[in-house]
């Protein structure tokens, strides 16, 4: 009997995630700044993640971070730490938390939150300077997973 209940719970959880799809930005659960489970429910694609990191209209991470592994992309910033070796310094769950909302890990950091949609002061409509009509996270759940998958390859 105990076993059936457990089995039921487990299948309910599995079915739940399958139906619910990606975790919404409001319902992400942070534990010490880290996020345990995939935001999209799927695994990330490192090559797409690399592209997101170097593309201005997407992650634009290299505006602030440099990396030897990304040396082919032009213009690396110095505002944040060099990304080489982050796959050793942090776990996958920690990296997910840092990308989704870096303020959960580093209090007061200048690093933007890429999976957050509320709590902003005068949010704009992209980079037009006009007020926002609708706020989407800067990156989607799957894009975050892709970025995390790429960062996990950055080992010394």
């Amino acid at each position, binding site marked *: 009997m105990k076993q059936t209940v457990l089995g039921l719970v487990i299948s309910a959880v599995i079915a739940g995630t399958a139906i619910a799809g990606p975790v919404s930005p409001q319902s992400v659960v942070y534990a010490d700044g880290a996020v345990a489970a995939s935001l999209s429910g799927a695994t990330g694609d490192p090559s797409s993640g690399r592209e997101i990191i170097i593309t201005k209209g997407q992650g634009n991470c290299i505006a602030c971070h440099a990396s*030897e592994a990304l040396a082919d992309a032009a213009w690396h910033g110095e505002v944040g730490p060099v990304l080489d070796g982050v796959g050793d310094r942090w776990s996958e769950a920690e990296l997910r938390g840092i990308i989704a909302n870096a303020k959960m890990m580093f209090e007061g950091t200048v690093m933007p939150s890429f999976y957050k949609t509320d709590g902003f002061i005068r949010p*704009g409509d992209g980079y037009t300077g006009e007020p926002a009509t609708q706020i989407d996270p800067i990156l989607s759940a799957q894009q975050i997973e892709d970025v995390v998958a790429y960062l996990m390859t950055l080992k010394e």
Partner: protein
Amino acid sequence: MRHMIAALCAATASGLALAALAEPDDQSLAVDGVELVTEIKASDEHPLDMLYSGWRFRTDETQALQTDDFDNPAFIFVEQAVDAWDTVEGEAGKSCAECHGAVEESMKGVRAGMPKWDAEAGEVWSVENFVNRCRTERMQAEPWKWDKADMNAMAALIGLQSRGMPVDVDVSGPAEPWFKRGEEMYYTRYGQLELSCASCHEENYGNMIRADHLSQGHINGFPTYRLKNTKLNSVHGRFKGCIRDTRAHTFKPGSEEFRALELYVAWRGEGLAVETPSVRQ
């Protein structure tokens, strides 16, 4: 092992590159042989220790354009304003020159103390407000639009008459609430990127952000000629762009908010020489 050494070397090399860039350069600025202060110890109340003009963060090529007025592209616009100064416009049949005489005399020192409290308006006013008061009330002409060519050229001509003088604004008395409001704005993290002026210009000056070498964000060189858009850019135009770049709903040039912010940012650059018209990338 080879790999590790290579990685270490690379790390050291980029570490050196960062260290070199992390500071303003050590050049000194002389325009047509006259020295301008681009570095000065800040007052005790200032959040920074040393103040550096934005000129010190630019490339040698961009810096050079500002050292000789013949090479400085801003002077094409200054010349236009010299003409406008003498041009009769509006119902009253007057030019700026008819009331003010020679711009070199009457406008000397004006920019160094801008923006400032205006008792009649009961507000802190930027130089643009004063220009438009003359145009509408004394000349009975149309006001000029903020951050547009005519206005920016006249602001550059007026600013030039203070070149070399230290920035020195009055933030006391009725101007104080404006100063406080500007200070609060300076530290507000606007937009979806949640970045304040301080995030870039106080915490990260000297660092590269993408292709830009971050300065302390002073306004002593404004209006500034930008190679990027090949025209003069006003203080409020720059503020608007910096806030827009945080994915925020920005403020309008001429707004109360930007005049308050201008007063506070001018104060942050007190003691630096007015460099108007400066040249930036």
